[in-house]
């Protein structure tokens, strides 16, 4: 059974090379693994190993030949052809090789343009925005509870419902939670399902993601989302991407939760909003509750979701009380914003603690005769673009409010969605109110200035309405 030996490629970008030396002559026999030739490119000299066994019956390209095209026949085994192609494999050789970093090899291919073109046909999918579904259900009777209680109740309800759900994190069990969010869970569910972790975010997050690959449903509490930076590789590279990389085989039903954004007087390393960081990544869902009902409904949905979900809580909201449905089955849909206050003159889009500020601003604006519509995003990925677009079509004006930095922030994304879907409806350029573009200062006066202020939101709304 004959075969042809082809000029091998040493990297995806190589198109030709020099056949420097033959180490076998016509008539010699070779077996798998034998070095038969050396080839040179501008980057490296590589040995060529035989893959098939046989006798070299003909050498078609003499040594010293330059510019030999990849995949051209350089020699024949046992008379050539018949046995299928038999390009030898390039193998490592010794010296005289310039520096070559592995990362230099693959370059973007032409297909990328096609892919991009294709993507343009799916603007909603490309930007992780989904149209909103049915109107929100009326859940009946409510009761005033704190956000802290709502989060605890959500975890307890889901843990009762599904034995695969468990909670891990620092101080979640015996200490009852660094912010007392997991109070009572150890007593009810025991140490097998409520586990204190050593201070080792990278390790325990990876461990939880691995457990989720097998179908368990971990809730990972970060004492604050600032510490999730230690673990972000597992959140993005392991949890968010594996479903895609596995062609849909390996999902990761995991919830990452904890306080996000500024607390109070804890300085730069403990006062950052990670909303745009996580909302940027396909494969994740990201929610940011404001009220107790948001907290309970969204956390329950996050735990049940078969995908990795980031739940961005807020420490200052933990102690605030809101009306929350008492229905045992109460749950919210991820990907659906809520119009907290209807209005006709300007749309104010906010999430998490900034919804409260937007509501106060709307109150003040009403006193001045401006009717503001406040949208509580609830979900940042997927983003409920339809609700925002419908609102702007009505009000023709947009203000976004967030605690995080303005550059590449959620406000930037919301504004761009409006450019793409409602540009002709705008009567004024959108305005974003955001945290200042600086690390959070400690001093009380400076911290106050670094965060969005009520008067800024009011002012922004007045500006876009030209009042």
């Amino acid at each position, binding site marked *: 059974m004959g075969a042809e030996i082809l000029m091998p490629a040493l990297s995806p970008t190589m198109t030709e090379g020099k056949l420097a030396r033959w180490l076998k002559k016509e008539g010699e026999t070779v077996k798998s693994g034998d070095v038969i030739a050396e080839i040179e490119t501008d980057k490296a000299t590589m040995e060529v190993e035989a893959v098939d066994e046989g006798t070299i019956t003909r050498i078609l390209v003499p040594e010293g030949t330059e510019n030999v095209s990849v995949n051209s026949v350089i020699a024949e085994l046992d008379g050539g052809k018949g046995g299928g192609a038999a390009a030898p*494999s390039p*193998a490592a050789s010794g010296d005289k090789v310039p520096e070559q970093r592995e990362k230099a090899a693959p370059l973007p291919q032409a297909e990328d343009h096609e892919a991009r073109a294709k993507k343009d046909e799916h603007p909603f999918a490309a930007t992780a925005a989904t149209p909103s579904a049915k109107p929100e259900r009326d859940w009946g009777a409510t009761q005033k509870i704190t956000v802290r209680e709502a989060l605890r109740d959500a975890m307890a309800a889901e843990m009762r419902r599904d034995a695969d759900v468990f909670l891990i994190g620092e101080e979640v069990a015996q200490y009852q939670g660094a912010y007392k969010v997991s109070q009572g869970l150890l007593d009810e569910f025991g140490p097998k399902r409520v586990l204190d972790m050593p201070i080792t975010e990278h390790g325990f997050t990876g*461990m939880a993601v691995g457990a989720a690959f*097998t179908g368990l449903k971990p809730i990972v509490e970060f004492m604050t989302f600032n510490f999730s930076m230690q673990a972000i590789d597992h959140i993005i590279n392991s949890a968010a991407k*594996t479903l895609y990389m*596995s062609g849909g085989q390996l999902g990761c039903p995991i919830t990452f939760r904890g306080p996000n954004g500024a607390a109070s007087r804890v300085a730069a390393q403990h006062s950052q909003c990670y909303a745009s960081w996580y909302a940027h990544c396909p494969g994740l869902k990201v929610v940011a509750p404001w009220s107790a009902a948001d907290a309970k409904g969204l956390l329950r949905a996050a735990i049940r979701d078969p995908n990795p979900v980031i739940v961005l809580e807020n420490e200052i909201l933990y102690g605030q009380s809101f009306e929350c449905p008492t229905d045992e089955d109460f749950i919210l849909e991820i990907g659906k914003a809520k119009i907290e206050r209807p209005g006709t003159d300007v749309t104010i889009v906010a999430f998490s603690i900034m919804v409260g500020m937007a509501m106060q601003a709307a109150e003040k604006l009403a006193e001045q005769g401006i009717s503001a519509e406040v949208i509580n995003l609830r979900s940042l990925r997927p983003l409920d673009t339809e609700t925002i677009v419908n609102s702007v079509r009505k009000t023709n004006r947009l203000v976004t409010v967030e605690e995080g930095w303005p550059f590449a922030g959620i406000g930037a994304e919301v504004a761009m969605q409006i450019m793409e879907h409602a540009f002709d409806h705008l009567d004024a350029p959108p305005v974003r109110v955001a945290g200042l573009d600086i690390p959070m200062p400690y001093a009380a006066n400076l911290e106050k200035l670094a965060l969005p202020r009520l008067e800024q939101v009011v002012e922004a709304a007045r500006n876009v309405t030209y009042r």
Partner: protein
Amino acid sequence: MSTEPATKRRGKAAKEPAMGRDKLLAAYRDMLLIRRFEEKAGQLYGMGLIGGFCHLYIGQEAVVVGMQLALKEGDQVITSYRDHGHMLATGMEARGVMAELTGRIGGYSKGKGGSMHMFSREKGFFGGHGIVGAQVALGAGLSFANMYRGNDNVALTYFGEGASNQGQVYESFNLAALLKLPCIFIIENNKYGMGTSVERASASKDLSRNGSPWGIPGEQVDGMNVQTVHEAAQRAVAHCRAGNGPYLLEMKTYRYRGHSMSDPAKYRTRDEVQRMREQHDCLEMARNDLLAMGVTEGDLKAIDDEVKAIVQDSADFAQQSPEPPESELWTDVVIEEAR
């Protein structure tokens, strides 16, 4: 450090072989399949049919095969991006692996993962991870799931000696020892993390002792000999199944090929590679042991033919299977599923 494996190689005429004839035959067949598969993958890479990174396992076959033969249904395996051998050892189809390498719809990940990212829940293979060391914490998680579910399954967590310097490896050791996780940590010490020798990267001179601060028992094993690997595997598996917590095996092994296909290999001599091939090749060793047990050349030739046919079939399939349709761009990003 010498280039020789630290532990003594079993003699060819050992009185009590770790594996009986049938098991060693099975091991030989699996190792040969990996060797031939990888040679074919190298060939297809040379033809431009496989793109990107392609890390071949040639030389290290005894490690995965000796370990895998100690496992039972429900046990899990996880490793880095040098993963083709692990997948074939778990019984994943050569066709599906090769077609993933060529980026075709018939591949295990429908062409969306490539060489470094394949998975099979059915065979207990959890990837295929491209971030060096990440699979160690993930492997601890697989074993955590076994503990949580109360079964006696174990998770094999493979990583290279290069990864053994990552911080999360030691976070994982701590967690595994603290929670008594049934996790076998396997350091495949092939002496080079890309182009950096272990001596230049690790202040620890005996990696099998790297778990000792947490009380994790460790062994150095001749990873070129499938029988010594298998003996160590049985000890480790028994330890973990009995609920004694994690176990660490340092496999002294060697890759004959470069780190990836585009590795010019300046960092080691041709003689060093040649010496390992001639004196420590796992296939040669197994072959000699089998012949000493009375297996005939004819029997081995039959295995050779069977393996060649599988590999050729996988290569044909990997070229015939179509590229994924463009609609696959948008699938599997998130699971769309009603609650």
